[in-house]
């Protein structure tokens, strides 16, 4: 244990004292924040004033559509003209679009007396891929048509607004007494999944790189004549892993402080996530932390095992896919697991060590699995980590003495037997 901690300390200090660590710790959040800011600015620009025209012979319907288009579109302003169709109208409006005097125009078609369908139409603009505008127009035309019809049935004008509003439905688990914002919790779990994914990509793989470096610099033989390979590998995983956790800790801590000081806005999705996090039970936090830590250790151990088999960083990069693949596979199961967190496949994936950390994170976010399931998952993860480190150390001990081509499976099995 003492030697393992000494190895971990050396690996940790060697990395956190570098300029690269300080730079990446500062620059990565700045980089991401910069991108988010640019994206937000671009979106805001996109939400500027849109000038469009509605071409319809039904002046009443066109007027209702004109009113509906500007409703419920925060940040965006619309300047909508209503145009009565003439033979040259389409050509004139097209010329206006080409001259950038108009963003687009909608030609409404009558439903020809078919009262079961709202009237359709065609929206012309410089690009046919303005999906957001397409959806907005569909909604506006439908709402305008429904209002017109309700009015014709004699529904009072003051009731129309209430009737057109969407119903407010809350989702609440029957097994949890605390009220929770499920959408925010899912976002939280997905965020943690991404964090684990990125941490493994950034730092878990570094464990493998550190082993390859040790092999190429030939320090391994001195180390193996002093300490057990198990201690060496465990120390590396702990040391290099702690570098990643330190960085994540700094980022999360800074975000926490900034959020607590109210620097970021509490409005919108971020505010809801913050609210959900603050309402989260302590057990969920513990489960999240365990999934994260065990996941990190497990994937780092796999990276260490793969590194023991290769001779260079190039070969290691090829092997990295075996670390990333199970995590990528988990991404494909996110939606089914969110929909059916208690289905047999969700339970199986949350117990199977290569997928357990990510899928269990998601299940914990949806609702806390039973203590038995959590215990089994924890036991299997710990066992898997032990087995992977045990195998790694045996492969490492012989692998470092072998040069040349990458070993095949029978050779690896023989290496395990050698030691």
């Amino acid at each position, binding site marked *: 244990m003492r030697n393992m901690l000494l190895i971990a300390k050396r690996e940790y200090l060697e990395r956190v004292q570098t300029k690269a660590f300080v730079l990446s710790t500062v620059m990565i959040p700045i980089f991401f924040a910069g991108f988010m800011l640019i994206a937000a600015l671009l979106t805001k620009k996109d939400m500027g004033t849109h000038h469009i025209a509605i071409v319809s012979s039904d002046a009443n319907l066109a007027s209702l559509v004109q009113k509906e288009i500007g409703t419920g579109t925060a940040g965006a302003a619309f300047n909508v003209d209503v145009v009565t169709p003439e033979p040259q109208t389409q050509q004139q409006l097209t010329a206006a679009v080409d001259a950038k005097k108009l963003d687009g125009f909608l030609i409404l078609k009558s439903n020809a007396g078919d009262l079961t369908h709202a009237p359709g139409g065609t929206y012309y603009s410089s690009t046919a891929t303005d999906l957001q505008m397409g959806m907005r127009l569909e909604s506006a035309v439908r709402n305008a048509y429904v209002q017109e019809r309700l009015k014709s049935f004699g529904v009072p004008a003051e009731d129309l607004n209430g009737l057109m509003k969407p119903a407010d439905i809350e989702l609440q688990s029957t097994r949890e007494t605390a009220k929770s914002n499920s959408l925010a919790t899912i976002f939280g779990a997905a965020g943690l999944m991404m964090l684990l994914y990125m941490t493994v990509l950034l730092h878990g793989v570094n464990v493998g790189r550190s082993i390859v470096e040790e092999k190429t610099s030939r320090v391994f033989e001195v180390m193996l004549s*002093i300490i057990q390979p198990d201690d060496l590998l465990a120390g590396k995983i702990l040391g290099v892993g702690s570098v990643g956790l330190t960085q994540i800790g700094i980022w999360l801590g800074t975000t926490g402080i900034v959020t607590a000081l109210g620097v970021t806005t509490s409005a919108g999705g971020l505010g809801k996530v913050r609210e959900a996090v603050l309402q989260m039970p302590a057990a969920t936090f513990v489960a999240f932390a365990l999934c994260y830590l065990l996941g990190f250790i497990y994937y780092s151990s796999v990276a260490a095992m793969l590194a023991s088999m290769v001779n260079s960083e190039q070969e290691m990069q090829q092997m990295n896919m075996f670390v990333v693949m199970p995590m990528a596979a988990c991404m494909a199961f996110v939606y089914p697991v969110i929909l059916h967190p208690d289905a047999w496949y969700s339970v199986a994936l949350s117990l199977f060590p290569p997928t357990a950390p990510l899928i269990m994170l998601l299940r914990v976010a949806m609702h806390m699995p039973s203590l038995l399931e959590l215990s089994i998952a924890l036991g299997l993860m710990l066992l898997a980590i032990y087995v992977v480190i045990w195998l790694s150390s045996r492969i490492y001990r012989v692998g470092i003495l072998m040069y040349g081509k990458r070993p095949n499976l029978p050779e690896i099995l023989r290496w395990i037997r050698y030691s």
Partner: protein
Amino acid sequence: MAVVQLENIRKVYDKKVAVNSLSLKIEPGMMFGLLGPNGSGKTSSIRMMVGITAPDSGTVSMFGEPFSQKLLQRIGYLPEERGLYKKMEVLEQLKFLGQLRGLHAADAKNRAIAWCKRLQIDEVMHKKTEELSKGMQQKIQFIATLLHEPELIIMDEPFSGLDPVNAALLQDTLMDLHKEGRAVLFSTHRMDQVEKMCDAITLIHNGNVVLSGEMREVKSRYPVDRVQIQFEGDDSFLRHEAVLESKKFKDRVEIKLKHGADAQALLSAAAAKATIRKFELMEPTLEEIFIEAAGGKANA
């Protein structure tokens, strides 16, 4: 109680027999040489001694008990493949390696400083390893091997790559440790070093032991049939019936005598033809013994 005892150890990698039925015994305080050409199995044997690999068969005992990891604290091992953490400062590196071998941080640091002074590298103690020459790095590894004052010192090709001054410095240090009563095993393909330093040797070739025993006893197995002559004048005495073969050098000639030949008769014949400055009857060198024992075959 033997410090090291190997009994019939064997190691095979795939189809290559690296070590075949090797037995040896190193007593306390003994300077032991493991000899052989490149690829003969020296490193494989040493790796089994220090537990980096396990023998396929046979037993390894250290300090009178079967090998176990805890015994490594009593051993100092310098591998043939040199390696240090390049980004670490010399003193920090030595302290770290000392701590791994059970020393307290302060103790490890003090010993490291003392050793650096002894080996004349105290001016680079605060430099990063990557900034140092290969010879300097080798000295650092040498110190790391000895920092915890091991009872048994195992060094694989300790003098390779060193300039003559530094090689002599490390040789003297090893001899000092030997005088202190520590057992030392080192491997080399340099027979002259072994001849000067070792009490006992084992000579291996292609994984097999070709010669083993105490230095004097090994040499006594071979007849004293070499003659070195420094002379001026006629060299026709080289065709004397006692001469089996001869090698002429700039200032001397080395002669191997026929089995049972009379060296005195050769001296008389030489003195009759030339002016003799030196006539020395020599025992065979270790190198000659090895070549004879190994049948003159070298490894690729």
